[in-house]
C-alpha cells in the first residue's frame, strides 16, 4: 500500500493555503465558457443565508427506503473499503446540464429520471495537499423535479469537499454522499458543513467529536423553495482533513495519487 506520508503541519498549511483559493481563484473565463447548460447564474452569497430567489420548486421527493444504511462512521467503512483508493477533493459547481443534454452527452437514461449532471472545477486534493485545476463532470442523485429531501440541486458557484470514488477526470464522477461537505468560503476561518447523515459522527480517539458543539442543525434555502439544504454539523476544515487523513492512514487505505497534478504542472 502506498501512502502519502505528509506531516500533519503540511496538511494544515495546505488547507490554510486553500482558504485563500476558495472562491477567488476560479478561472472566470473558463467558467463562463462552461456556464449556460441550464442558464443558471453563479451564486456568491454566504452558504448560511437563505437564497431569496430560489429557482426550483420540487414536484416530489425521492423516497428510496434502503436497507443496511450506515448508522455510524464505523459502519461507513464497509462502503469505503472496497474502493482501491480514497480521496477528499474540493470542487466548485460550474454549471448544470439539462436532462436531455446529460443523456445526449452520456447515453445514460439515468439522467432522464434519477440524477443530474454538472460541470465542476476540482481545485484541491486534500489528502495529497496539492492544488488541482481539473475541469470534469459530476453526477448527483436526484433531479430538479424529483429531489432528495435536504439535498436540493446545486447552484453554480457552490463549493464542496467530498470523497469522489474512483475519480477520473475523463469520466463522469459521483459523490460519496455521507462525506459531502459544503465549504463556506466567505468566512476567514473556513468551515465545512456536513449535509445530512446525522448519525455519521467524526469522533477522535478520546471520544470527542471534532464538530463545533455550539452549532445547531440549520436549514438553508439554496436552489429550491420547498427543499432547503440541511447542515447537520459544522467542522473546521483543517480539523476535518486532519481527521480523515489520520483515520484513513490508520486503516491502511491507499490515497489516490493519479491526478493531473497541479495547475503549474499541467501548464
Amino acid at each position: 500500500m502506498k501512502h502519502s506520508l505528509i506531516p500533519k503541519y503540511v496538511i494544515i498549511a495546505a488547507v490554510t493555503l486553500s482558504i485563500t483559493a476558495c472562491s477567488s481563484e476560479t478561472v472566470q473565463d473558463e467558467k463562463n465558457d462552461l456556464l449556460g447548460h441550464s442558464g443558471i447564474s453563479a451564486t456568491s452569497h454566504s452558504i448560511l443565508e437563505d437564497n431569496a430567489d430560489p429557482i426550483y420548486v420540487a414536484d416530489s421527493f425521492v423516497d428510496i427506503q434502503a436497507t443496511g444504511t450506515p448508522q455510524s462512521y464505523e459502519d461507513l467503512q464497509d462502503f469505503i473499503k472496497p474502493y482501491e483508493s480514497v480521496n477528499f477533493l474540493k470542487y466548485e459547481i460550474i454549471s448544470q446540464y439539462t436532462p436531455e443534454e446529460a443523456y445526449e452527452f452520456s447515453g445514460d437514461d439515468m439522467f432522464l429520471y434519477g440524477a443530474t449532471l454538472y460541470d465542476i472545477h476540482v481545485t484541491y486534493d486534500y489528502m495529497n495537499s496539492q492544488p488541482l485545476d481539473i475541469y470534469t463532470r459530476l453526477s448527483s442523485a436526484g433531479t430538479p423535479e424529483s429531489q432528495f429531501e435536504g439535498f436540493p440541486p446545486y447552484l453554480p458557484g457552490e463549493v464542496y469537499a467530498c470523497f469522489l470514488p474512483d475519480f477520473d477526470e475523463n469520466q463522469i464522477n459521483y459523490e460519496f454522499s455521507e462525506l459531502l461537505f459544503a465549504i463556506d468560503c466567505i468566512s476567514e476561518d473556513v468551515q465545512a458543513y456536513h449535509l445530512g447523515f446525522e448519525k455519521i459522527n467524526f469522533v477522535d480517539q478520546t471520544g470527542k467529536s471534532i464538530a463545533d458543539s455550539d452549532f445547531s442543525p440549520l436549514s438553508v434555502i439554496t436552489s429550491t423553495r420547498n427543499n432547503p439544504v440541511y447542515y447537520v454539523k459544522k467542522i473546521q476544515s483543517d480539523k476535518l482533513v486532519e481527521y480523515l487523513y489520520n483515520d484513513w492512514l490508520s486503516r491502511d487505505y491507499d490515497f489516490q495519487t493519479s491526478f493531473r497534478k497541479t495547475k503549474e504542472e499541467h501548464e
Partner: protein
Amino acid sequence: MNKIKILLLFLTASFCAVSILSVSSSAHTVSIVVEHDPQYTGWDIYDESEAHHSNYTTAITVNKGDFTSADFGNYITNAVTQWNNATFNGTDLLYMKESSTGYIKFCKKTLAQMQKVNKGNAWAFVYRSKATTDSNSHYTLNSGNVEIWVNWDDVLSAKATGCKTHTALHELGHVIGLVDIPASVSPNAYLMCNEFGSYYSVPKEITINDKQGAAVILGQHTNHSFSNSGTWNEKIDNTQHRRICSVCEGYTIQNHSFGAWSDYGQWLQVRFCCCGYAQYRDK
C-alpha cells in the same frame, strides 16, 4: 406523531372472478380508514398514492435476476418461501412465487451504481423510479418492472448469513407496501427495521407485526375488530382515545364516549369511557 391515514380500497364483486395472476384494474369501491403510527402498531405502510403491490390474491412473482444459487439466489428463494407460507389470522397472507419472468427482479449492483441514484450507501433498496403503476398506484406486473438493487459483491456478500436472509425478506416487504421502521421505534424487533447498524442482530423472519401491516395493505384483513374492552381502547388525552383493532393493531382515533354518571362517594359523581378514562363532577 406521524399519523398517516391509509385509504384501503378493495375490488368489486367481479374481483372474485379475476385470475389471481391478472392485474387488478377494477374500480375501488370500499374504503376503510385506519391509522398506523409504527410507534403503536410496529408496522407502517405506504399510502395509497405510493407504489405497492395490489392485493393478497394476485401473485407476487419474483425473478432472481442476476443472482444464482451460488450467491444471493438461495436467500431470495428462502424469502419467497417464507412470504408465501406466511399466514395471518388463520389464513394465507398472500401468494408469492419465483418466476423467470417475475415482475420483481433482483439486480446485482456496484457501490457506484447505487450511489449514482441514491443519496447514501446501502446494502440494498427497491429502485422504484422506473417502475410503472396503474391508476391505483399498484405495480403493473410486466416482467422486471420493479428492480431490487443489491450491493452483493462489495458489501453484502461479506456480511453474516442473517444479514443476507434479512435483506431478501425485507426488500420483498417493501414491494408489498411495507415501510421501514426507524430505530426510534425499534432497531431490530421487526423485519422492516432498517437502522440496525453493523452490531445489531438483524431480524431474519416475518414478525406478526409485519404480517399485520401486509394484511392491511393487501386487503387480506378488512373487517377490523374493535371492542369496548379497555385493553383495546387507549386514552390519548382528556378528549380522545385510540380504538385499536385487536387483529391488526391499526386504530381509529375517537372522542371519548362516556357512560352514565353514577355516584362516587358522598359528594362526587363519576362516568367512564371505554378506554378507562374517568370524569368526575360534583354531585
